[in-house]
């Protein structure tokens, strides 16, 4: 870490054409697909006359199974990942089954290499690429299997297409051997190898033959210009089942002989139970047992509702929280964290910041972002069964191997004794990277050996145990002189989302939390004196990754402050950003959103527009928000958004993800916060933490660009610019600068 500090921004090879088409991952994908035969987790479960070429493709005489490597938390993994394989294999939807990956290091996430390496995304210098290659090697060795960081496409774009190509070419080789026809004279279509005389051989009929030959490892994926399905509007494979109500989420599963559990846990997160009185609960209908667990109680009943009612009736005395009981004290700790002893890191320094701040007009502002909950609509749940052999667990989770670790640790088993079955999730937004339901379920099932236990968190319990998004304060300073931004000194104090998650995953890290740099140091404006510094507040609520993580708060701070500097310099917010942007294809993103929104400067008449640009997870994203002032408050009329992902693989899902990200960003910025009182959060259902409903939802116009040299993800990047674009629009419409989320504390919304 720290390579950036002494480098001039001029030293970056921004937007270089040297790395074209994701060569780094291409090379990896081929090598990986070739090298996994020994480690392929599908080999162990293979039936007779069946074949697997790599960890993503399995063919038996009956069926073809494609593995979705990542967790499907609503972002479409269960569709787009098998479709990438199917594209190369010449399979049609309906000709294959999809299964979620089991825990295995073979499914390590290559897509984190860019985010974890200590270089800003647009830096494609040889030094940056070398650091990413080293990070990739570390990821491979550690076998980090995780869904997150908008990495599902960056991780799988190359390797799944290679995996499909290897399958296709090996099936052709098997057909060639059987028929005596040269491979060059064979083609594939709709799940068959086609011989020159028109004879069709189904892939499933070739499985036994294919198992006897070596996979064709040098198979190349096709050029995107040859795609049949990818890059065009596709029907998601899960759409029909979701619309017909037939898709089973984790919460919908039922196992013979199963009993239902509900819990009441210490709302002072992580602290134990002191004592309890369950006499009333034990007498309630449907109740079988009340169990004591480490940080609370569990009720076992014949149905979830009986269990929840009885859990609510247990009177518990809790050990006090380890963090301040009252919210005001959380803010006080943050306020006093801008000190050397709490320094996370000075992430980037350009020019002479102290001299710069003394030049021209000084602008100073403090910004705040509160704790926020994830609260996907499907509450945390899971089914667990402990026997003498180990534990079987059915739960939706983004980190399969860490589920094994957490469950095993909770009940003194070895991780390999935990059999994990991943499930379709009713949303996550970072919630299903945490483990509270996993740990508690392991404890309960262990006390109920031999009986499958279905645990469902009540919504209230889910809120109380939701490890929130980081809380943060930014103290930014900058200066403008002669119509230019001369300096920007960006500082924030925050809790640490990624460090916290890694620690709870059994991988504690001493490094500064890299997510506190996201949205803070990756600023691509030509500002000659620049510094970005993070401070890590101690002793506050545990915090974790929430859709777009560090950039969800820093993006708001940075792009609001840049807007303040631009206004102080007397410039147009859009034109100034375009003029200052030093990465050519990032500038194009801004120019695109300017063109989409027909940006011409101030609107007047009680209307206003704001723009914001944030690169997060390598994806440059620009948004324009337009608002009107009405008698009842601010109305959000329209949003335009341009996003450069290198390649739009699944256009319908792309638009859906982008619109969803905007709605997520706006909704929470307007009206969501978690506040602590007596050590527990005060918000326990959606009426306290509503985000956006349909009546507030603006029209959102989306455009995807394909200029970035790498394929980038899109689940999170639309979130960070939404809040600052809205705050900047409100400033344009009203002259009022809102520097703290949620905005509805300061202004009404229609």
């Amino acid at each position, binding site marked *: 870490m720290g390579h950036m500090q002494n480098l001039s921004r001029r030293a970056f090879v921004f937007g270089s054409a040297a790395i074209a088409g994701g060569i780094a991952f291409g090379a990896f994908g081929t090598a990986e697909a070739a090298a996994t035969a020994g480690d392929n987790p599908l080999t162990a479960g293979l039936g007779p006359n069946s074949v697997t070429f790599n960890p993503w493709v399995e063919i038996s005489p009956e069926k073809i199974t494609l593995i979705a490597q990542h967790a499907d*938390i*609503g*972002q*479409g993994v269960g569709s787009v990942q098998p479709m990438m394989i199917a594209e190369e294999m010449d399979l049609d939807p309906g000709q294959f089954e999809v299964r979620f990956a089991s825990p295995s290091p073979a499914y390590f996430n290559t897509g984190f290499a860019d985010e974890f390496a200590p270089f800003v995304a647009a830096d494609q210098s040889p030094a940056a690429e070398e650091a990413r290659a080293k990070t990739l090697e570390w990821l491979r060795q550690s076998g980090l299997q995780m869904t997150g960081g908008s990495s599902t496409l960056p991780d799988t774009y190359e390797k799944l297409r290679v995996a499909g190509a290897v399958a296709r070419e090996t099936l052709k080789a098997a057909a060639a051997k059987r028929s005596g026809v040269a491979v060059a004279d064979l083609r594939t279509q709709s799940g068959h190898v086609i011989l020159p005389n028109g004879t069709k051989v189904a892939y499933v009929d070739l499985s036994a033959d294919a198992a006897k030959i070596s996979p064709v490892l040098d198979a190349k994926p096709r050029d995107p210009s040859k795609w049949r399905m990818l890059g065009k509007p596709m*029907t998601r494979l*899960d*759409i*029909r089942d*979701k*619309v*017909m*109500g*037939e*898709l*089973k*989420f984790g*919460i*919908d599963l*039922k196992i013979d002989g199963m009993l*239902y559990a509900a819990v009441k846990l210490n709302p002072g997160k992580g602290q134990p139970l002191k004592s309890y009185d369950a006499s*009333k609960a*034990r*007498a*309630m*209908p*449907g109740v079988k047992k009340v169990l004591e667990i480490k940080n609370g109680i569990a009720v076992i009943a014949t*149905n*979830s*509702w009986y269990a*929840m*009612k009885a859990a*609510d009736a247990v009177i518990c005395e809790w050990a006090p929280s380890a963090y301040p009981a009252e919210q005001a004290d959380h803010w006080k700790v943050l306020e006093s964290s801008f000190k050397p002893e709490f320094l996370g890191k000075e992430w980037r320094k350009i020019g002479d910041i102290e001299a710069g701040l003394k030049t021209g007009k000084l602008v100073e502002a403090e910004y705040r972002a509160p704790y926020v909950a994830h*609260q*996907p*609509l*499907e509450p945390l749940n899971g089914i667990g069964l402990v026997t003498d052999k180990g534990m079987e667990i059915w739960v939706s989770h983004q980190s399969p191997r860490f589920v094994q670790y957490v469950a095993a640790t909770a009940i003194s088993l070895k991780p390999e004794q935990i059999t994990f079955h991943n499930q379709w*999730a*009713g*949303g996550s937004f970072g919630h299903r990277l945490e483990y509270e339901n996993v740990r508690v379920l392991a404890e309960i099932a262990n006390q109920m050996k031999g009986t499958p236990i279905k645990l*469902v968190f*009540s*919504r*209230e319990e889910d809120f109380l145990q939701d490890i929130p998004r980081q809380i943060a304060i930014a103290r930014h300073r900058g200066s403008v002189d002669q119509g230019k931004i001369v300096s920007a000194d960006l500082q924030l104090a925050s809790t640490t989302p990624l460090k916290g998650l890694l620690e709870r995953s059994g991988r504690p890290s001493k490094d500064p939390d890299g997510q506190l740099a996201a949205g803070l140091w990756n600023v691509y404006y030509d500002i000659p004196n620049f510094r970005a510094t993070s401070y890590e507040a101690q002793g506050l609520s545990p915090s974790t990754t929430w859709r777009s993580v560090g950039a969800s708060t820093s993006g708001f701070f940075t792009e609001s402050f840049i807007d303040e500097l631009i206004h102080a310099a007397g410039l147009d917010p859009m034109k100034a950003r375009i003029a200052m942007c030093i990465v050519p294809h990032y500038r194009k993103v801004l120019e695109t959103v300017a063109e989409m929104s027909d940006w011409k400067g101030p609107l007047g008449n009680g209307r206003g527009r704001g723009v914001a640009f944030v690169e997060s997870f390598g994806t440059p994203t620009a948004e324009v928000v337009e608002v009107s002032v009405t008698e009842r408050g601010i109305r959000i009329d329209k949003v335009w958004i341009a996003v450069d992902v290198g390649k739009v693989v699944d256009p*319908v899902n792309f638009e*859906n*993800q982008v*619109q*969803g*990200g*905007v*709605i*997520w960003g706006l909704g929470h910025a307007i009206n969501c916060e978690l506040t602590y009182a007596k050590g527990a959060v005060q918000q326990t*259902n*959606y009426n306290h933490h*509503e*985000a956006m*409903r*349909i*009546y507030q*939802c603006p029209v959102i116009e989306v455009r995807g660009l394909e200029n970035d040299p790498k394929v980038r993800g899109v689940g999170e990047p639309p979130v960070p610019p939404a809040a600052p674009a809205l705050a900047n629009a409100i400033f344009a419409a009203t002259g009022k600068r809102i520097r703290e989320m949620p905005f509805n504390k300061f202004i009404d919304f229609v």
Partner: protein
Amino acid sequence: MCRSNNSTTLAGAYSFDVTSREDARKDTDMIELTVNGIKRQVDVVAEMPLLWVLRDELGITSPKYGCGVAQCGACTVQIDGMAVRSCQAHIGEIAGKSVVTLEGLEKRDQHPVLQAWIEHQVPQCGYCQTGQIMQAISLLDLISQPTDEDINEVMSGNLCRCGTYPRIRAAIHAAAAKKMAEK
């Protein structure tokens, strides 16, 4: 916890003061209702919300548990033709009535609302969508050609955390157009 707004009523409905555990277990009643055209009997307490009867007693899982307090709409079903939050309907009060869940819609595969939902690829995670669809069907029964304002009015009780609202709007308009064309 569930329905905190009327917890007094709920608590009062239980015989919490009974001394024997066995007696408490006899709090349940055999209740008969029609679900998706089939007569069903359940042996539960009368206060149990219909949602949990459907999900845990009858294994009908399209109505989803989201909030338990009528804040999200994921549990929406029809009772005697009306869209109702099944987390708020006590089973004892709907004995003898007819409940239709998404699974029980007539000609489900050709239903114009479901078709529009598929054509517009509305779902992301999909967890709220069965409730959204049941509410949208009810909306179109009330107003055959709804405006965006009508949609905002009727659909605002249905929360979607993924943010599929633009597609929900489009699908409702498409379903309305389709129904109009079929007339």
